[in-house]
């Protein structure tokens, strides 16, 4: 199978096999638009489930319990604060986490004592925490500030590096796409949003841009002389780049997703609610969507943006015109040329050393 994969990689590189990713961009845009819409709906209903860090309140963790009887915990809390409806969840193998609204100091002490006797554990195994309501708001505030600062920085870096703001714009659009879908899926799964989740979301920023930069670097390399030749359109050159980096993209995402997936599995099934699980879910979804978007959204978007440029538009028209047999001069004005159905898409990179025999020799036209 590996050899099949390698052969597939070769074919993608040489262009013998090619997926028309840029050409079918409307399809990808449509898919993404639907995904983003679904995510937006998911964000409204059921919406994100804020964790205690964002709600504010008191939290108790009883570790080393012999029974994870949640009702026992609820009863204990309600004995102290009858109006409370605590949320109880299992953390790790033998720990219970009980979250309540904010309790007074006295109540906290009572609940602690109550839990100690109810679960028959020592004082060391009951911990309490209190989170003020402003804490979570603050964390999200910082996250948003961080997001904006990061975006500004990255836009500058990318614009300078690629010497073209369109790549930065396309990368940022892809980034938002990733974020919205990730948050939407997180909302759909319904796990609590904790600072760990926010960390996960913020990391996706980095990862998504990172992945896009790698693909764009190849696009830049392939298209640097795009306007100086008349064999391929800009879109075709970009498409070749995407195809050539496809193997890299797949390898990278598999390698990046494997560790995250293993944390996710361990976090979700062994540890229960907690930092690792929340981070891992956000990262897993985000990385997956990020890889998808750098191939199927970012590059097509970049091509769309570039094709609005006059030189590129004229060039494309010229190449297509030449290909379909219309004289180049007819297309000089940049008018869109109807491309004949039979006109094949050019996909291949030129291979140095390929020689075509006699057919490549100049011949006299006998007509």
């Amino acid at each position, binding site marked *: 199978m590996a050899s099949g994969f390698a052969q597939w990689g*070769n*074919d993608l*590189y*040489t262009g013998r096999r090619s997926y028309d990713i840029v050409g079918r961009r409307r399809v990808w845009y449509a898919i993404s638009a639907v995904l983003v819409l679904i995510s937006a709906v998911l964000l409204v209903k059921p919406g994100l489930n804020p964790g205690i*860090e964002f709600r504010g309140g008191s939290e108790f963790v009883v570790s080393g319990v012999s029974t994870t009887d949640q009702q026992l915990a609820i009863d204990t809390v309600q004995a102290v604060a009858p109006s409370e409806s605590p949320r109880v969840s299992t953390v*790790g*193998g033998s*720990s219970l986490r009980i979250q309540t609204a904010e309790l007074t100091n006295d109540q906290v002490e009572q609940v602690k004592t109550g839990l100690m006797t109810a679960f028959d554990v020592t004082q060391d195994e009951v911990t309490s925490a209190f*989170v003020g309501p402003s*804490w979570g708001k*603050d*964390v999200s505030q910082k996250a948003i500030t961080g997001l904006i600062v*990061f975006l500004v*920085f*990255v836009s500058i*870096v990318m614009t300078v590096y690629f010497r073209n703001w369109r790549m930065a714009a396309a990368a940022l659009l892809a980034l938002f796409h990733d974020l919205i879908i990730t948050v939407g899926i997180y909302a759909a799964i319904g796990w609590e949003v904790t600072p*760990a989740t926010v*960390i996960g979301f*913020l990391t996706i920023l*980095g990862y998504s*841009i990172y992945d896009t*930069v*790698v693909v764009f*670097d190849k696009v830049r390399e392939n298209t640097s002389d795009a306007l100086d*030749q*008349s*064999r391929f359109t800009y879109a075709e050159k970009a498409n070749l780049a995407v195809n050539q*980096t496809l193997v*890299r993209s797949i*390898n*990278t995402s598999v*390698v*990046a997703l*494997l*560790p995250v997936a293993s*944390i996710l*599995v*361990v976090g979700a099934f062994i*540890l229960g609610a907690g*930092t*690792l699980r929340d981070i891992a879910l956000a*990262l897993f979804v985000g*990385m997956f969507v990020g890889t998808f978007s750098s191939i199927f959204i970012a590059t097509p978007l970049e091509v769309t943006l570039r094709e609005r440029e006059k030189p590129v538009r004229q060039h494309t028209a010229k190449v297509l015109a*030449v*290909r379909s*047999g219309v004289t*180049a001069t007819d297309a000089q004005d940049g008018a869109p040329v109807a491309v004949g159905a*039979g006109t*094949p898409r*050019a996909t*291949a990179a030129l*291979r*140095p*050393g*390929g*020689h*075509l*025999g006699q*057919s490549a020799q*100049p011949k006299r036209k006998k007509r």
Partner: protein
Amino acid sequence: MVVVALFATILAGTRWGDAALTPNLALDLEGGTQIVLQPVPEVAGQVTSDTINQAIAVIRQRVDASGVAEAEITSQGGDKIVVALPGRPDEATLDLVRTSAQMEFRPVLVEGSPTPATATDPSAEATPPADGATAAPADGTADDAAAPADDAAAPADDAAAAADDAAAPAADAAPSDEPAKAAPDSPSDIAYYVTPAVQAQFDALDCTLPANRTGGAPGPADKAFVACEQEGQAKYILGPVEIPGADIKSASSGMGMSQSGVSTGQWVVNLEFTSAGTPKFTEVTTRLAGQTRPLNQFAVVLDALVISAPSVSNVIPDGKAEISGTFTRQTAATLANQLNFGALPVSFEVQSEQQISATLGSEQLEKGLLAGIFGLLLVVVYSLFQYRTLGLVTVASLLVAAVVTYGVITLLSWLQGYRLSLPGVAGLIVAIGITADSFIVYFERIRDELRDGRTLGAAVDKGWDRARRTILASDAVNFTAAIVLYLLAVGGVRGFAFTLGLTTLVDLVVVFLFTHPLMTLLARTRFFADGHPASGLDPRRLGVDGARYVGRGRVTTPGQRAKGTADAPTPREPVSVGATGMTIAERRAAARAAEAASAPPQDDPPTAGTTDAPVDGRPEGSDR
């Protein structure tokens, strides 16, 4: 070399210092209490980083004083103070952290040598030296345990009388705290403020013991207060608070000026009061200037410690005081800082307080590491599968990266007090993917170059050129993300951002200093250069089939002889430049291509392009 140097440092640290071979763990892994404080300005205005730093210094002093070891107090996200206490600190310690520092000006009533009074009366011994942190609670206790009636009437004018009086009742009876007069004449009224209880406490206090000089909560504002000088040079009975610290406008240190404006060459601390503080200060200095020592002194009390007790020689009407004495540059600056802290217009609001049990933390760490190792194994298997022997280079590079990262974290936790937190561990695990990606980008580029028909040596060089650009660009983005997150975030996010940024740097170092040199070396070995099928760099598998020109008129034909020149040219795409019409061959090809529309289009359009002059001189028709 880098690795060796790193670990040599750590080993040396372990050998001769207090470094450990494992990084310190943060609270969420080790268990403990974490309190996040948000400064709230009391008057409108900004909380500057100066303010925060001073507040941290005070909190640190208090926590250290309470005997909690290894407390970590940091400012995060610009304006938050995160106090991390290991283990299960008691309520008193937590209260110390929660209350904000108090500076106050009190008149000095009695000054004494720092050792306990030598009087052999039992009360001095019965009252244990103020334990642990505070003098104030002791005062409070005496206050509550309302004095026995027989003490109340006792005249308590001087120290000896008070001591004798306190000695009279049974040892368990607290000395009286009732003032001898109905109302004080002035805040410097010894007769009113120095009650037997205060005197007994003063006598018993031993300021030479460091435990008694740790500061604590300030005493009640309207009562006398016993305090040590911060260096243990003296002890004082102080009058009630006359000016709160908030009335200080600013303080600075500098060279003293004589009246004529000539520098005296002495370091002084200049103190300025606010408009609210100025009349109070005028009043105090007016009163004190007429007194004799020790009554002419006022004490600056910070957290129940006297940081300075200058005597007043003149009435100071304009609220601008100059404290002179035997200051050095250092001590003057310190005092000015402390005075400034008294002017801090902030109090603290507890934003979150979390206790993490050690068992839960270690369970998370254990499982997290397990997940990481499992993930790493999967990565190893995958890269071996994908890249064959080349995968071993990935694995070796990952291992080197892991070892370097571990070393750096250990070193930082020794030198900088860095602590590894759970989000930090998550950052490390995520980094596996990003680090491995650098190698994948590199290898893919090498393969690309091989596909272009280069020999391995050339491919490694050329591939490295291109991969380096990509790796640098993408790592720059990643590093930017890490830095932004680190600077702006609080708590866990920081730990995560830190490890992310660190591993990005380590990734660069490893790729540049390990993977690339290793590849260059490997490219010289026969196993790789000849493209052994298991090497992962087999040109045949990479589509470079047939003959390859190797120079000097020789052609290598791995596997098989060059294909016959009679091979029919494969169908071509009819792409041409500047043609006004199609040739017959092109038309046929077009027809064929249209027929095979569902099949993937074929490669290599034949035209006299500008870029594709044959460099490798392959025989014609050999293009598979």
